[in-house]
């Protein structure tokens, strides 16, 4: 298929891998930030191709995975409300909250619907004025602009039955938190291509100043990732630390100013709790007070909801790249996509589910490890 097959070409891939083997003189630990990138690495078995010593650890960039347990519990509480219709992206429905998930709430009669775009939620709210329509707005800087536009539009129309449970998260503060951790092993990052399509990569230059760790903004196809890995290893071998852009067909340094304007109009930066990682200062987006009337958290009185994460789940270490999913004693046994202990086993972009789904024959033939 045009514009896809070119990025999945075996011959070019082998060429990049050979070049990588020539340039790498010592082991390097790299992290891909995005869940979408993790998914591609697993689906195409790219780690199988890499020269020994180039290790990839999987970052916290799966929006489903890092959405805090209490946010899931809030969504569940709202969806159980008889007057509420909770509208969500599909992969949030199976994420386990403290006691149940949205699929079970739906089975018990809760009105839970799946859309691809927040504008569909707006459409539903206009057509159903008697329902309190709540859009479950999770995700990184990638999904936030469209969600901002939905709220902006609702305010402009004076739509009274639409609100948003907003739990957006931001990438740069998460990288900062990882690099500040005394246990950090990561020596270079594949930056989040779609986040940078919106935000540009100026913010990542500050990270280089503070930590001196190279970042290459990467795409999501197999050759994108191999090329980004080659660019990172080249920087590391040459002793450089810069922001470089591999994903030039989508990303510019300044990003998309219209999307950034929409974000700034509707959202403000807030502290945010990440599932598996904990609270990170100034790492989230919340509705500005000018848009408080669209805040589902206030409307449904769920502000006080708190939750404790299951002790057995090691997603904290997985999302920080300290452990691989098969290192978990529950992996593939007590924790499966049918019965997930933690969010990384739920979404197809979660590191645990990606391993479980695609783990190569060599891993699988040895059982669950």
């Amino acid at each position: 298929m045009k514009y896809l097959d070119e990025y999945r070409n075996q011959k070019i891939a082998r060429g990049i891998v050979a070049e990588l083997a020539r340039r790498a003189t010592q082991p390097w630990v790299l992290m891909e930030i995005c869940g979408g990138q993790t998914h591609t690495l697993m689906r195409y078995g790219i780690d199988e191709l890499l020269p020994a010593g180039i290790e990839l650890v999987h970052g916290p960039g799966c929006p489903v995975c890092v959405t805090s347990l209490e946010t899931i519990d809030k969504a569940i509480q709202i969806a159980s409300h008889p007057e509420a219709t909770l509208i969500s992206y599909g992969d949030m429905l199976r994420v386990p909250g403290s006691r149940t998930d949205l699929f079970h709430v739906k089975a018990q009669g809760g009105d839970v619907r799946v859309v691809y775009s927040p504008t569909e939620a707006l459409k539903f709210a206009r057509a159903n004025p008697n329902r309190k329509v709540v859009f479950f707005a999770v995700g990184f800087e990638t999904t936030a602009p469209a969600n901002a536009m939905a709220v902006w539009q609702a305010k402009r129309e004076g739509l009274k039955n639409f609100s948003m449970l907003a739990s957006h998260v931001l990438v740069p503060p998460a990288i900062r938190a990882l690099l500040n951790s005394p246990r950090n092993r990561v020596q270079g990052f594949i930056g989040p291509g779609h986040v940078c399509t919106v935000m540009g990569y100026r913010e990542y230059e500050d990270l280089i100043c503070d930590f001196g760790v190279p970042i290459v903004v990467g795409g999501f196809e197999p050759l994108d990732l191999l090329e980004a890995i080659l660019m990172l290893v080249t920087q590391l071998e040459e002793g450089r630390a810069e922001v470089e852009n591999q994903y030039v067909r989508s990303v510019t340094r300044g990003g998309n100013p219209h999307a950034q304007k929409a974000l700034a109009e509707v959202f403000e930066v807030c502290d945010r709790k990440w599932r598996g990682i904990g609270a990170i200062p100034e790492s989230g987006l919340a509705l500005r007070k000018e848009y408080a009337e669209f805040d589902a958290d206030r409307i449904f009185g769920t502000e006080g909801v708190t939750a404790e994460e299951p002790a057995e789940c090691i997603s904290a270490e997985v999302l920080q790249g300290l452990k691989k999913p098969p290192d978990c004693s529950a992996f593939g046994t007590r924790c499966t996509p049918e019965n997930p202990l933690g969010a990384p086993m739920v979404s197809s972009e979660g590191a645990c589910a990606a391993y479980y789904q695609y783990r190569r024959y060599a891993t699988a033939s040895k059982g669950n490890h």
Partner: protein
Amino acid sequence: MPPEAKLDVALNCPIQIAAGESILLGHGSGGQMSGDLLRNILLPALQNPVLDRLDDQAIVDVGGARIAFTTDSFVVKPLFFPGGDIGTLAVNGTVNDLAMGGAVPLFLSLALILEEGLPLDTLRRVVESIRVAAALTGVAVVTGDTKVVEKGSGDGLFVNTSGIGLVSPGIRLSADQARPGDRVLLSGTIGDHGITILSQREGLEFESAVASDTAALHTLVAGMLRASSEIRCLRDPTRGGLSSSLNEIAARSRVGIELEESAIPIREEVQGACELLGLDPLYVANEGKLVAVVAPSAAEPILQAMRQHPVGANAQIIGTVTDFHPEMVTLRTSLGTSRIVRMLSGDQLPRIC
């Protein structure tokens, strides 16, 4: 193992559907959760040697004749979609379940569950589709039933069809017949039906030039059987897609299956929609395709026979049966690496970004 340990294992056997739990949409996905429902609730209660084969149809001896018997319910939303409607699906689906056993389909039953308020015109259109599809496939609807439920208790129209067909002596197709070295053949592009339905769903509409592939496959099967008798098993990969059918065959035959990604035909529109929505076409439903496991020497003649038939024009050899990794399906990717193709737990969920 000491007897106590065995007892312990038995007591701790995980029961997926515990008391107090309820049916989720995922139980209807054709994946792992559907299988759990069968294994944990239906099979223990109804067990018998014919049912236990878990093929798409039962084949029973009646007075010396080998009768194929099957049933299927249709709950598609929307009722009408590009390429067909619930009526064409209800005829073709059941005809195909018979055909996968190598049967010549003969008779259908038709049961309609109608929701109060359903426009009679809608019913007329569906019945006309059923008439046309039955005429095209050469089966007769010989018995039926109608029930009406209160508004809100149904989704407009549910259809059930059962079918009876006749299997010639000497034909024995079953999911437990695959042997190492056998070839895996696919009759055409995958994912057309599932992507068509998805593109029509409320809240998810997107423009697409794809139409459902709904088609009866019994004449294709007849042509394949004429080309060679060395067909081990046939499946029509409906809900759960190609991956679920192949995983079932691998499990029942205790063999591994290795697929070649580049050999699996997929329309550009379907591939594009899957990329956009974060879906894997291997798990997307088909309604007019079959996957065949055949003896190595029979692969070429059967492939040629398939390609001569209109619904098999894009047929391909997509993989090989192996003893290397029993009960596991793997796929050689376009990069030359290999990965596992698992049975999905429930439905595929569209991703956030």
